[in-house]
């Protein structure tokens, strides 16, 4: 089955990105496809390469980037939401790309299920 994932909150502040990550890992382990992970609202803050969390905590941004690398995931950051919040090509982490909101609607159309993680 093809899953679309929508993440609406930034890293660390809300559990949304953590839960979505565990969900995506479990879906991949079961042989499902992840059609796309779309980052919207404060979710765009998951895509900055400038985070440097404490050593004893998880690195949310890198975790997404590594999972994307391993499974060829399409991690898309909404351009409008990103511009409002200061995410641009300058500080974009590896594995993410910036694109339009149409990519979210497309996810709704192409994926068998769209699952939202937010506040």
């Amino acid at each position: 089955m093809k899953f679309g994932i929508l993440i609406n909150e930034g890293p660390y502040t809300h559990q949304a990105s953590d839960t979505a990550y565990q969900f995506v890992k479990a879906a991949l382990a079961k042989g499902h496809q992840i059609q796309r992970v779309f980052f919207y609202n404060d979710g765009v803050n998951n895509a900055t390469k400038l985070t440097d969390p404490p050593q004893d905590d998880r690195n949310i941004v890198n975790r997404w980037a590594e999972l994307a690398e391993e499974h060829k995931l399409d991690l898309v950051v909404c351009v409008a939401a990103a511009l409002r919040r200061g995410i641009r090509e300058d500080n974009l982490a590896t594995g993410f790309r910036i694109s339009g909101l149409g990519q979210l609607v497309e996810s709704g159309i192409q994926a068998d299920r769209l699952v939202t993680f937010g506040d």
Partner: protein
Amino acid sequence: MLHIVNKSPFERNSLESCLKHATKGSAILLIEDGIYAALKGTQATAKLQEAMKDCTVYVLQPDVDARGMQGRVLEGVKPVDYAGFVDLTASHNAVQSWL
């Protein structure tokens, strides 16, 4: 349909709103701070028990454990892990997250 609630029933109206809109036979999955609704002996317990007459209620066990609420989950609420969460989304035709 699968309804997902991730907020504490003591803090927000998300669960209440979900229960108002979940039709008979729906599945409700409690995750993150939503797991506090799945517990025995709280002021929110009766509300969930009422809902369990019409809906099947699941709880994300990793979130229960994280919060130290193991052993407090109401009988009849079905524990799932992330793999079970995936199965629930796959086996229902649509998903509504009550953010």
